[in-house]
């Protein structure tokens, strides 16, 4: 959209005119969006605006009919879903993508799967090496859990955690992948107001320490406004607005479509 801003630094993620259709339902129509390195970009919009669908398209879980999505300037067409994480794109899921019967630690260790390759051949024919990798993976996963403040829960079954903790564990798993960009789909769901603040600090800390780019979908306006550098708004599957939190907060179209009277 704003071409001059793109010139400055190459965005980590850039989508242009992306459309997604499910049968007769047009979930996205020509949406564009970019995320700069080190930036937290908010993605908001009414329910059904197509935010999650955009995330799915950007991680190649759904196909887009038109447009292009580029990662570090590389087009994603033809890239397999499973290769996205290896290219530095890690994500969380709106409806939770956790493995309920595995422990928290196992879930987080899965985040590093793409680096370990998890090959049967290695496990069968090079067991010592496989075991060494496993050990270092476990240590790294523990470190990540430490970082998000969940180290004490490592041995719990993921399914037994409270909903917000499950969401947080998903973030830890995404971090274990050591991504360049993190796509978060409603990570603060189920948090109380105070917890949201704390959570915001956590995300911001992660971004700073790791110099990550983050695309954040949230309905929690307090969080979005305080955390994001820039916000993109979708409505009915199209771009509605884009700007700084202050601009968005006072954008009439956004207020009408999304925020409601008392934001």
């Amino acid at each position: 959209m704003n071409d001059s801003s793109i010139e400055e630094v190459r965005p980590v993620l850039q989508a242009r005119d992306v459309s997604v259709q499910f049968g007769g339902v047009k979930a996205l129509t020509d949406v564009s969006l970019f995320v700069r390195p080190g930036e937290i970009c908010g993605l908001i919009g009414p329910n059904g605006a197509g935010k999650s669908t955009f995330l799915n398209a950007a991680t190649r879980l759904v196909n887009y009919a038109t447009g292009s999505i580029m990662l570090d300037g590389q087009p994603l067409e033809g890239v397999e879903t499973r290769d996205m994480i290896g290219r530095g794109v890690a994500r969380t899921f709106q409806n939770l993508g956790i493995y309920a019967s595995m422990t928290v630690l196992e879930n987080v260790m899965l985040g590093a799967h793409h680096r370990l390759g998890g090959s049967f051949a290695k496990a069968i024919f090079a067991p010592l090496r496989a075991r060494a990798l496993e050990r270092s993976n476990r240590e790294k996963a523990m470190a990540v859990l430490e970082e998000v403040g969940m180290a004490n829960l490592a041995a719990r079954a993921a399914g037994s955690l409270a909903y917000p903790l499950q969401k947080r564990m998903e973030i830890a798993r995404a971090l274990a992948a050591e991504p360049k960009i993190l796509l978060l789909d409603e990570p603060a769901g189920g948090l109380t107001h105070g917890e949201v603040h704390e959570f915001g600090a956590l995300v911001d800390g992660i971004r700073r320490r790791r110099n990550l780019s983050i695309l954040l979908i949230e309905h929690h306006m307090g969080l979005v406004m305080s955390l994001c550098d820039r916000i993109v708004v979708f409505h009915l599957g199209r771009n509605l607005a884009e700007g700084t939190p202050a601009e968005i907060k006072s954008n009439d179209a956004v207020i009408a479509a999304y925020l409601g009277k008392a934001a």
Partner: protein
Amino acid sequence: MRDLSLSTAIKLSLFAIVAASISVFAPAYALQQVAIAIAYAIAILGLNLLMGYAGQICLAQGTLFGVGAYVTAILNATYGVSPLATLPVAAAVSAAVGLLIGLPALRLQGLQLAIVTFGIAAAFPQLLLKLGSLTGGVSGLPVDAPETPGFMTDVPELWLYLIALACAGIGALLVSRVLFGDAGRALRAQRDNPQIAQALGVNLTRTRLWAFATSSALAGLGGGVFAIVSGFISPESFLAILSINIVIGSIVGGVTSMAGAFVGGLFMVFVPSWASDINLSLGNLIYGLALILIMMVARNGITGFIEKWISMIFRRAAG
């Protein structure tokens, strides 16, 4: 972690004690039966990996078992290869066949896959008859007994039993290597939610095919052992019902348990005949009831049931 290795050690020594006392106390004919049970157990080990961990239901494990048995028998009877030397080949050929059977699994799941593989199991005996020149048709093939070391010539069954046990050990080692690490996690991940697994970088195709290959290799190994222990094989031993029975063995033992594989193998061999020993004409009635009652009492399989009790007792003792 320490707990885990401790419980593994306890389990292993328990296993060793049981295995040793069987070899001492069981009469020769029963020892051979146990060896056959172990041959089935090897196939169940594979199926547990595939069904319990990879979540792919294969109703053709008996077929792959049969492929292994026939590879051993053909190599031995037709080409004179020593029986033990055929085992790796049996495993490899079954793995290859298993890969082929596994190909549809890349697109099919659950029930659909189960039924397609069941069809393969149903067709297998006919195929064996059709390839009569290779398989000996309905008359089957004899397999030489492996050379028994001097000191046990009196009880060749003991030697057979030890061979079976050793092969099962190899199988268990293989499975444990796969399961306790990144590969095993990926396997479970693609079972519980393939889409999420993909997003985590799991290569579904490769993971599933490897699971099929490993499982089939074990089926083939088990089949080879079966051929050696039986000394004679024919198509009648590899009817579709065998695949069903292996699945029953796997589930009754416990699909996610290695010890369960052995329980399952023993179950397959001994329970039907015990049932008919109780009452000849009511044998199957008793067997059917047994299946139902066992699952009602031990819904996670016999080992799951035992583990639950043991951990309950431990917790009592501890607290």
